[in-house]
């Protein structure tokens, strides 16, 4: 049988890297099969996908040994346009791969590169948009789409090449539960109706497993195990040992100190609302809740539900026009960014944008220096921040040279060194594998518990498991309004159903 893709002893090392990213991969994928690749961050999933459509080694500096075959031919001998039309590749972040202004131009980009005639391009665009359930957005501007819609357009732009294999690199990592389910449903339909071969790299195994025929577990560039559908259960111990999410497993709730219910809330907001323009629908409406001392509050909801708007209002990044906000028991009608400096830390969705120093230690020390803290106090704060996030070993490294998980920890340590009482965290767990996520959540919980009931966190997340693991209460938004509010365990028990249909159930079992 001719395989769709086969790696024969494939080994790859990026130029200048100390070790191989792929170490002798032997794996064959049958036409029409769906293979789920999983493994911890940095295990080589993305590198393997890129060897399938020739981006590696053709567009990446490095050395590939062994052989990659695509439909029985050596990939090295297949011309790039042909290879890329056979194996379509969808990247992790849709924001970075949409190149054109308008949706139909984006989808047409691939067929235009293949020099198809205009009539054929129009047909391909129409068909690809329909397959990705994005026809309604044909004339929209890419910049105006939601995260889920962008991912659909990115998928359509790959489908327009008429690929025989679709390689997807964490296609749902930036999406909420509902958008993830919709994308996976589209993929399932394409596999069924077109016989498309699917190769999906994903660390959230539970999401994709119902679609997969085989599960391949990678670690440090090597295949650790291959499990066909009927033996998926045997993979669970291996997944657990690698710190990966095992499907059907709800995360354990960490033990925690009780919140100080008698003390005034750290932040309280009443009837809060916001519109980005006068004629626009409300991004947030009539919202009232609070963060108690010693509490972690999970702020949840689908993309565009108003989570970031609420954080922006609380942090003084947006002007409060409707409703009231009280910080530390004091009403703040004219809340501004500078009025909370040093007492409230805000971790933005992309922590890389918060890094500006030459070394990790310099980054952590920057806040206390800007706040003009006395030298001895600043030194203690830096040491505490570094220690709390396990960073002393990286102290002299450049913050941009460490891994994504480590960069996140550096940004968080830099906030902690400023001595805040409250942290506002915007999607800190997005894109992290289970091991990194777990460690981060434990650190956050510890920081709150060590604060003797004086600290609190508002944690904005899509991830029900993370919220359940560390949050005391959960506030769920939908279209800018309150959908649910109460103890996390009670609220999140209803995830994936009814009013909380947009949320993914805690066990990750939300496949297509």
């Amino acid at each position, binding site marked *: 049988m001719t395989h769709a893709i086969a790696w024969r002893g494939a080994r790859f090392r990026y130029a200048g890297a100390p070790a191989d990213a792929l170490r002798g991969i032997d794996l064959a994928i049958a036409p029409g099969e769906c293979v789920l690749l999983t493994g911890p961050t940095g295990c080589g999933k993305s590198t393997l996908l890129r060897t399938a459509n020739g981006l590696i080694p053709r567009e990446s500096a490095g050395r590939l040994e062994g052989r990659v075959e695509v439909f029985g031919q050596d990939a090295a001998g297949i011309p790039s346009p042909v290879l890329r039309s056979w194996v379509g590749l969808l*990247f992790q972040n849709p924001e970075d791969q949409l190149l054109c202004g*308008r949706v139909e131009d984006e989808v047409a980009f691939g067929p235009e590169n293949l020099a198809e005639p205009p009539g054929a391009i129009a047909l391909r665009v129409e068909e690809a948009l329909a397959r990705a359930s994005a026809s309604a957005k044909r004339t929209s501007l890419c910049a105006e789409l939601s995260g889920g819609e962008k991912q659909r357009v990115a998928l359509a732009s790959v489908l327009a090449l008429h690929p025989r294999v679709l390689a997807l690199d964490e296609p749902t990592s930036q999406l909420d539960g509902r958008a993830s389910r919709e994308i996976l449903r589209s993929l399932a339909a394409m596999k069924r109706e077109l016989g498309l071969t699917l190769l999906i790299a994903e660390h959230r195994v539970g999401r994709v497993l119902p679609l997969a025929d085989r599960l391949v577990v990678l670690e440090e560039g090597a295949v650790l195990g291959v499990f066909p559908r009927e033996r998926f259960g045997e993979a669970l111990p291996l997944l657990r040992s690698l710190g990966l999410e095992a499907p059907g497993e709800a995360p354990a709730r960490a033990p925690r100190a009780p919140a100080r219910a008698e003390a005034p809330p750290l932040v309280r907001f009443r009837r809060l609302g916001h519109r980005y323009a006068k004629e626009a629908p409300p991004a947030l409406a009539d919202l009232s809740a609070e963060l108690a001392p010693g509490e972690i509050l999970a702020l949840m909801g689908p993309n565009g539900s108003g989570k970031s708007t609420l954080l922006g209002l609380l942090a003084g990044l947006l002007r409060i026009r409707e409703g009231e906000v009280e910080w530390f028991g004091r009403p703040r009608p004219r809340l501004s960014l500078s009025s909370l*400096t040093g007492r409230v830390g805000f971790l933005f969705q992309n922590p890389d*944008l918060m890094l500006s120093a030459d070394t990790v230690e310099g980054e952590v020390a920057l806040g206390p220096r800007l706040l003009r803290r006395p030298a001895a106090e600043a030194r203690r704060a830096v040491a505490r921040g570094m220690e709390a996030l396990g960073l002393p070993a990286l102290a002299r490294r450049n913050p941009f040279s460490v891994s994504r998980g480590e960069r996140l920890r550096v940004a968080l340590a830099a906030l902690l060194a400023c001595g805040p009482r409250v942290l506002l965290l915007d999607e800190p767990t997005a894109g992290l594998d289970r091991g990194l996520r777990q460690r981060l959540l434990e650190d956050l919980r510890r920081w709150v518990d060590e604060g003797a009931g004086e600290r609190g966190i508002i944690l904005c997340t899509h991830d029900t498991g993370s919220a359940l693991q560390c949050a005391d209460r959960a506030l769920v938004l939908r279209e800018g309004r309150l959908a649910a509010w109460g103890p996390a365990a009670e609220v999140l028990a209803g995830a994936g159903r009814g009013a909380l249909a947009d949320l993914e159930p805690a066990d990750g079992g939300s496949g297509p």
Partner: protein
Amino acid sequence: MIASSRAAGRDPRFLAGCLLAIGALAVALDSIPSLGALAAAGLGWALAARPGWRRLLLLAAALGLSVWSLMVSQAIFYNQLPRTAILVLAPPDTPVIGTLTGGLAIYREGIWHGAVQSLRLVATLSAGLAAAWTLEPSGLLAAFASLRLPHALAFCATAAIRFLPVTVEEAHVALRAQRMRGLRIGGRGGANALRALLSIARPVLAASIRRAETAALAAASRGYDPARRRTSLRPLRMGWGERIVLGAALAAALAAVTAKVLYLLYASGLYHHPALAALYTFTREAL
């Protein structure tokens, strides 16, 4: 925000040609009535692009501030001769200012000169904004191909237009992140502002480089190769209306530049032909 030019039936080559013609006319013309007509054409084009109120506000602010600063600076600091003072602001014997500057006044010729410069600016700025508002980045690829210019240049321009708003937003986030950690922007004679700029430059640059790499890989993975021929979903076709407008604009620009060159040759005594006497008069009085 980028609107669709091709959806509105306009061709990027038409936009580029019109901009070229307006730019050439703005340089060639000197008389206030003719520059006024050119400025009106530029403004008309900007309004025809149906800008929202935000863009209108932006246009009004950009034009208002530029015209005001040009007029005031030219009216007060005009130093060519002859010049006629129509209002004395500070006589030469005024302590400090008068002694230092030799006196300040508003000069009639300065106002005239300021008006000429302002009208040039209004024409080119309005036309430039109109073209930017109605240009579809992907149309650039087809336009460059039809003009036989390198694809790679068009791809760079397209990506820059597409990702510019993302980069601006990231600069905002980086600045906010630093401010929340105590960074001050105002005061200390601009030193704080410079420090703020440096502190956001690194993360924004790093993010841009990372995004550029992903975008390049995404383009390559969809078969983009600058060395290969590509086609277009909507091949560029300039309508008759566009051809006529563009032809007229380019012809007017060519005629004005030619007339101006001939007049300058005549005025400087380098070349003179009696048959062109009427053209010299027309250029001096109307252009």
